[in-house]
C-alpha cells in the first residue's frame, strides 16, 4: 500500500477540472486497453516480443501489477530456452537496466526487488552483474540510508553463491567496515547499527574481537555525546553491554568434528551452557531425510572442563556439556553437492541433571558444499582441539553461532557478543554520569544507568528508584513502563531475599 500520498489541492475552476477529468479518463482507457491486450496474449499463450513489450508498458505505469511480472517471467523463460547463454546474459542485463529505471521511481516496491532477484538467479554469469548491483544498491542507500529493501538486497547479494565466486562477493569484515562507513555518515542510521550487530562476530571470528568491542564502545560514546536524544546508538549500546547471566540452560551451538581424514568417526559436537543428560535421541537430518543409526556419547576431556564456564563443574560420567552425535556410515553424507545437515528438537532431547530443560526450541543447521572434510574440525577419539572449541564458544555467545566453517544455530542467545567485565561496567557508568551532568533531562543516559546499576548488583534500590521516578516525569508517554520497571526491581529484591533464606 502506498504511503505518504500527498493530497491534491481541490481544483475549483470547472474548465480546468473538466480538462483534468478528460486526461484521467484517457489514461484509464489506455491502461485498461493494455491490460486487455496482455490478458488476451496470455490466454492465447502468445509469448512473443509483442507480449513482452505490453508487459513492459504496463509495469512502467504500475510496477505493482504482480501477475504482469509473472507473465513477463514466463515469456522470458520460454525465450531464454531457445537462446545461447551469451544472448541470455545480454537480455538479462537489459532486464536489470529496466529495473534500474523503475527502482529510481519506486524504490520500495516488493515486486521490483523480487524480479531483480529472479533476474540474478537466471543470469548465466551472475558474477559479472553482482559487483555492479552492489554498487547500485550502495548508491541507493546513499539516497535513502534506511530503505530496508535496499539493505535486504545488499544481504542477498552478499549471500549469493555461484561457482565463479565461491566465497561470495564480500567478507564479513568488508560488511562490518561498510556499517562503520554508514554510521560515520550519520549516527542516526539504525539500519547500519542493526547490520553491525549481525556481522560483528563473524568479522572478528579469527581474532581481534575484544579490541573491536573497545572501539565500538568508543563509537557509541561519540554518537550519544553528539545526539543524546537519538535512539540508534543507545539501542546498540544496550546490546553491547549485554545482560545479567541468567540461570537458563541454553544450547551454545555445534560444529562438525572428525579425524583429519574421514576414515574414522565423524559427527556433530553439540555444546550446552551446562552439563546435560540425554532424554531422547535428537533427530539428525540430511536435507529433509532423518538419518538412521546416529550414535551418541558425552565428551568430557579434562582440559576442556578447565576452560568451560563455572556451571559445568558438576559434570558426571553420564552428563556433559559436550555431546558427540556420530554419523552413520553414509556415502551421501560425506561427498556430494550442496546439502544441509539439521539437528532437530534439541530441547526435547537433553535436560540438565537438575531437571532444568532448554527453555527454547533448539535446532542446529549446517550447509555443506562439496566435500564434508573441508568443514570438519580435527577430532580424534576423546580429544577435541581446545582452540576450536574455545572459538566456537566465543562466537556462540553472540547473535549467531558461526564457526569458521559457517555453521550456525537457529536459536541462540541474541545478547551480547562477549560478557562484559566489571571494569567496563564501571567505566560506562562513569561516562554516563558525566553525560547526565551535561544533559540532566536526557532520558537515555538515565535509563541506561539503571540497567548498569542492576548489573553491578546490590540490594540498595534507592538510586535506581529515584531515577525511574524522574524518568516517569521526564517521559510521560512511557510513565507506566518506568513504574513497571520499578516494581519489578522491588519484586526481584523480595524474591532474592527469600531465596537467600
Amino acid at each position, binding site marked *: 500500500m502506498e504511503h505518504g500520498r500527498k493530497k491534491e489541492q481541490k481544483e475549483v475552476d470547472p474548465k480546468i477540472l473538466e480538462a483534468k477529468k478528460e486526461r484521467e479518463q484517457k489514461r484509464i482507457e489506455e491502461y485498461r486497453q493494455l491490460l486487455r491486450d496482455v490478458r488476451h496474449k496470455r490466454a492465447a499463450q502468445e509469448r512473443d516480443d509483442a507480449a513482452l513489450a505490453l508487459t513492459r508498458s504496463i509495469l512502467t*505505469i504500475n510496477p505493482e501489477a504482480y501477475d504482469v511480472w509473472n507473465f513477463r517471467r514466463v515469456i522470458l523463460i520460454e525465450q531464454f530456452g531457445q537462446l545461447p547463454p551469451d544472448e541470455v546474459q545480454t537480455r538479462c542485463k537489459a532486464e536489470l537496466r529496466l529495473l534500474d529505471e523503475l527502482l529510481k521511481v519506486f524504490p520500495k516496491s516488493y515486486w521490483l526487488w523480487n524480479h531483480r532477484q529472479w533476474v540474478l538467479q537466471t543470469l548465466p554469469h551472475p558474477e559479472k552483474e553482482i559487483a555492479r548491483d552492489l554498487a547500485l544498491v550502495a548508491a541507493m542507500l546513499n539516497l535513502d540510508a534506511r530503505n*530496508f529493501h535496499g539493505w535486504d538486497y545488499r544481504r542477498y547479494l552478499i549471500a549469493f553463491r555461484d561457482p565463479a565466486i565461491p566465497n561470495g562477493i564480500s567478507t564479513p569484515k568488508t560488511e562490518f567496515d561498510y556499517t562503520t562507513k554508514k554510521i560515520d555518515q550519520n549516527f542516526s542510521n539504525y539500519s547500519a547499527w*542493526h547490520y553491525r550487530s549481525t556481522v560483528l562476530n563473524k568479522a572478528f571470528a579469527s581474532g581481534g574481537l575484544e579490541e573491536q568491542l573497545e572501539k565500538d564502545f568508543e563509537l557509541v560514546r561519540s554518537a550519544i555525546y553528539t545526539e543524546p536524544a537519538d535512539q540508534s546508538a543507545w539501542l546498540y549500546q544496550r546490546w553491547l553491554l549485554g545482560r545479567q547471566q541468567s540461570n537458563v540452560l541454553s544450547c551454545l551451538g555445534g560444529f562438525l568434528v572428525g579425524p583429519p581424514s574421514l576414515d574414522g568417526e565423524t559427527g556433530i559436537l553439540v555444546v550446552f551452557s551446562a552439563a546435560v543428560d540425554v532424554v531422547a535421541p535428537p533427530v539428525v537430518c540430511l*536435507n529433509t531425510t532423518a538419518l538412521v543409526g546416529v550414535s551418541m556419547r558425552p565428551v568430557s576431556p579434562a582440559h576442556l572442563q578447565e576452560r568451560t564456564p563455572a556451571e559445568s563443574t558438576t559434570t558426571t560420567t553420564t552428563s556433559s556439556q559436550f555431546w558427540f552425535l556420530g554419523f552413520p556410515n553414509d556415502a551421501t553424507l560425506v561427498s556430494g553437492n550442496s546439502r544441509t545437515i539439521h539437528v532437530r528438537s534439541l530441547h526435547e532431547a537433553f535436560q540438565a541433571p537438575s531437571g532444568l530443560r532448554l527453555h527454547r526450541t533448539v535446532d542446529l543447521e549446517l550447509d555443506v558444499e562439496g566435500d564434508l572434510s573441508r568443514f570438519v574440525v580435527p577430532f580424534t577419539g576423546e580429544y577435541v582441539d581446545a582452540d576450536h572449541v574455545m572459538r566456537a564458544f566465543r562466537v556462540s555467545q553472540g547473535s549467531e553461532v558461526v564457526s569458521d566453517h559457517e555453521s550456525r544455530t537457529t536459536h541462540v542467545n541474541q545478547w551480547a557478543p562477549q560478557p562484559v567485565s566489571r571494569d567496563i561496567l564501571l567505566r560506562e557508568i562513569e561516562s554516563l554520569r558525566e553525560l547526565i551532568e551535561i544533559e540532566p533531562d536526557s532520558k537515555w543516559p538515565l535509563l541506561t544507568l539503571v540497567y548498569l546499576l542492576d548489573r553491578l548488583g546490590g540490594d540498595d534500590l534507592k538510586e535506581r528508584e529515584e531515577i525511574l521516578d524522574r524518568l516517569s516525569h521526564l517521559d510521560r508517554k512511557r510513565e507506566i513502563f518506568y513504574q513497571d520497571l520499578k516494581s519489578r526491581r522491588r519484586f526481584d529484591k523480595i524474591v532474592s531475599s527469600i531465596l537467600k533464606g
Partner: protein
Amino acid sequence: MTHADDSTHTGNRPRNKRVKYPLEVPANLTLDTESHVTYIKELDNKKDTLEYWVTEHLRLSGVYWGLTALAIMGRKDELDREQVIEFVVGCQHRSGGFGGSREHDPHMLYTLSALQILAVVDALDAVDREKVMQYVLSLGNPDGSFRGDEWGEVDSRFAYIALQCAALVEAADRKYGVGVWRGSAQGTPKGVGGVEERVEGGERGGTASQPVDAPSTAPPPPSQPESLTSPPPPQPSPSSSSPHANPPKTSRLGRLDTDLIASWVLRCKNFDGGFGNVPGAESHAGHIFTCVASLAICGRLDLVDRDLLGWWLAERQLANGGLNGRPEKLEDVCYSWWVLSSLQILGRDHWIDSRALAGFILSCQDSSGGFSDRPPDMPDVFHTLFAIAALSMIGYPGLNAVDPVYCLPTDVSRKLGMVVEWG
C-alpha cells in the same frame, strides 16, 4: 495450539489495565463513523480514477480492509453479503489459492484476505477449504518458512498467513465438517469438481489459468516437504465435532508443524528483540506483528523477550502521540495497529500513552471520510482499517473489539473458537 477460554470476551487479556477509555477526547476529535462508512461504501464507485485501476491487483485485500473496518464500527451489513461472497469465490484458482482480483494470479496475500472476508461474513463454507490448505501447504519450505507464491519470495508475512489460514480452515472444519462446503454434496468429504466448475463459471472462464502457463524451468514446482505435512487427520462427522472444541496442546495446527514454523520465525529475531521479514533483516514493526502473532498462534510466545521487545515497541511513540515503525522514522497511522497489537499480544500495551495515540489517529481522519497515513495526506482504505482497529484496541467507545492476533472482530474469532492465548 492452546485455545483460550471462549467465555472471556477478549481472550486472556490481563484485567489490570491502568489506562482505560473513555478518555477525554477533545470535542473536535471524535470518530466520524458516518463519513467513514460512506467512504468505504463508495470505494467501488471510483472507476473514473486511475487509482482504482492500478490497485485492482489487491482488490480482495481492499475488500477485507473495508469490510473489517465496517465490522468494527458495527456496520458490516452496509456491504452486500452475497455480492462480497460471489467476488471472493470468483477469485479462487484451481490450485486453491486466490488472486487479488478476478483474472489475477493466486498469492498468499490474497488467499488470507479471502478467508478473512469469508470469516467476517460467516461464509467459510463458500469455498473448498481443503483446496485452500493444499495451496498453502504447497508453499511451505523444509525450514519452516513459506513462499508468497510459486515464484519463491520468502517473508515472515507468509508464515503468518499460512498459520492464520490453517487456523481459519481448522475452525471452519469444526463448524461445517471436514470437506463440507457449498460446492460439495452435504456430508461428502471431498467436493468433486466443485472449484473447477465454480471457477469456470465465473468471469475468469476461458482466460489464462495457472497450470497452462506455469513456468517451465525456474523455479521448480513446489514440492510438499515431508516435514511440513502429515496425513490429513481422521475426519470426524460434523455432528461429533463441537464448534468450540479446544484441541489438546500439540505442535501441529492442522497439517502445519508449528514448532518448525516457530523455529524459522525465531531466525528473524534481532539484537533488539524485534523481528525482520527474513533472517538478518532489520526489526520493523510490521514484521514484528507478523512474527509475534505467528508465535501466538503457534502457542510459543515464550520465545519472545517481552520486556526487551515491549520497550522497543513503546519507544515507537513520538511526541505527537503517533507511532513509527522503526527508530528515527516518521509516524504513520498503520503502525498504530502493528505496534499496538504486538504490545497487546505481549501484555505491554499500557507502556504507551493511548490517549495521545488516539488523538493522533483521530487527527488523520479526512473530512470526507477515511484515514491517511498522517495529515494532510490522501486517505486510503488500508490506513482506514488500521486506524479504526487501533482505536478499538485502545477502547474508543462504540467500537467492536478486535482480535490482536488475527485482525478480525473478536466476535468472529471467538465464535469460530480460534482465540489463542495472548497478553
